[in-house]
């Protein structure tokens, strides 16, 4: 183990800090040093970050519930009272770009500060990362990903695709291996299965055992057009740009035309359009002989353009 981490460091795969931690620090030590106070400060600032996300009211509510639950169970434990097991595996249902990954990251950090997870990082995988091509391959692949995720969250995108392919497919083997590691690392690993609402429902119906192991279900609703506009405004502001009124109108129009079930309410689409608009603005300004500060700031309607990739 320890030689392994030194090799990873040698080849530039992990930071010195991570390496040092693995070699020399124990959980207990970390906790003593962190101290209660500055910890609750961190929790506060992570919660602010969560609250600043547009929409997602039900998600925010649920996170608050979980925090309260974990804290009360801790208190009860301190008083030597009976405690409920804290099982925090989750199912995220929702369309692409509805904030699933963003929320998972925030939850990971939150859990680290709360002492639920040691590291709180997230490892995102999909079918190809954990399903192998021959016998034994799958178990190996799962093991590798689990190893990376220990202390944090294993986030499985489009999880329903594991059940695809019928009897002979190794997806089933992957599910079994995942379930086993859930038990093996039950105190230091959280799994999140994510995917479209309908597909996830079918998936869980065909695997009743799974459903009970993932007690927390979170729905990520599509963003409304207005929410998407707000998200766009924030994204622009964070990078010191500003959408003009005309640009906002154009974006609105564009978002309505994309309003098929796959792309509706999709913040990732917005991000791509906004990022592209920065480049288009640059191109436009280069043709000008004089560029004012306001020019540098403003994203105009002509900079907003959809992309056929979506």
């Amino acid at each position, binding site marked *: 183990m320890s030689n392994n981490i030194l090799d990873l460091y040698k080849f530039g795969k992990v930071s010195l800090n991570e390496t*040092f931690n693995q070699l020399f620090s124990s959980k207990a030590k970390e906790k003593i040093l962190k101290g209660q106070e500055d910890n609750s400060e961190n929790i506060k600032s992570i919660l602010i970050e969560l609250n600043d996300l547009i929409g997602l009211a039900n998600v925010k509510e649920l996170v608050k519930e979980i925090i309260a639950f974990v804290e009360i169970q801790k208190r009860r434990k301190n008083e030597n009272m009976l405690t409920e097991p804290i099982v925090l595996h989750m199912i995220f249902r929702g369309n692409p770009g509805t904030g699933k990954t963003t929320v998972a990251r925030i939850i990971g950090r939150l859990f680290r500060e709360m002492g639920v997870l040691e590291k709180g990082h997230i490892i995102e995988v999909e079918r190809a990362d954990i399903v192998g091509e021959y016998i034994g391959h799958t178990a190996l692949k799962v093991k590798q990903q689990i190893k990376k995720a220990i202390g944090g969250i294993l986030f499985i995108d489009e999880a329903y695709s594991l059940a695809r392919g019928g009897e002979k497919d190794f997806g089933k083997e992957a599910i079994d291996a995942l379930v086993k590691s859930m038990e093996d690392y039950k105190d230091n690993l959280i799994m999140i299965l994510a995917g479209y609402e309908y597909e996830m429902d079918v998936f869980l119906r065909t695997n009743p055992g799974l459903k009970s192991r993932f007690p927390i279900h979170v729905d990520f609703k599509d963003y409304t057009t207005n929410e998407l506009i707000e998200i766009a405004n924030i994204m622009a502001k964070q990078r010191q740009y500003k959408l003009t009124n005309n640009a906002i109108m154009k974006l609105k129009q564009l978002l309505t035309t994309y309003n098929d079930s796959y792309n509706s309410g999709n913040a990732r689409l917005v991000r791509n359009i906004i990022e592209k608009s920065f480049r288009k603005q640059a191109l436009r300004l280069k043709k000008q002989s004089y560029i004012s500060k306001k020019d540098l700031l403003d994203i105009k309607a002509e900079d907003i353009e959809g992309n056929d990739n979506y």
Partner: protein
Amino acid sequence: MKKSIIIGKSNVGKTLFMINFAEFLGLEKIYIIQEFPDGKKLNREMSIEAAREYLSSSSKYKTQCIQSIDISIPVYKGKKEIKIMDTSGLIDGIHPDISIRSGIIQTLERLHTCDIIIHIIDVSLLTQGILLSQIDRQIIEYGISRRGYILLANKIDLDKAKIGLNKLKKDYEEVYILPMSALYKTGLDEVKAFVIRSI
């Protein structure tokens, strides 16, 4: 023989401290063993002046391997030999140069086998806004969990160093922090006393 290791970020004064500490303990010449990451060993003998000139430098990553000297230190009526190891400078994250990372790995491999850890920081860099880097905090954490750990707040001779020292002391009440100057050779007496106590 008891082993001590000098660790810290690059350019904090590890090498200069080792040389001047050796001089303070009465050496006129040093025999230094350099052990390179690829396994090569080099023994060199030089005067204290030459050591200062050739081994310590104002540019970073001057030291790129473990280099050690053996010193005898007076204990009670007798003397005791100790090994002092100077090491490559540490840096947060992933340094882009593999040879520097290899030097750092040598330090990580030996750290737990050492009886005494002399952790050096450049306290003049710690003005009120800037905090200790993460690796320094990690070393402190590790240090206070075991015996024989000392934190040297080096370059106390520089302006602003006092501000940094006060802040450091406030943040780490449980750590033995010793202000000193490797350059002007102040505080070496206390380091000597600490070493004697720890062996």
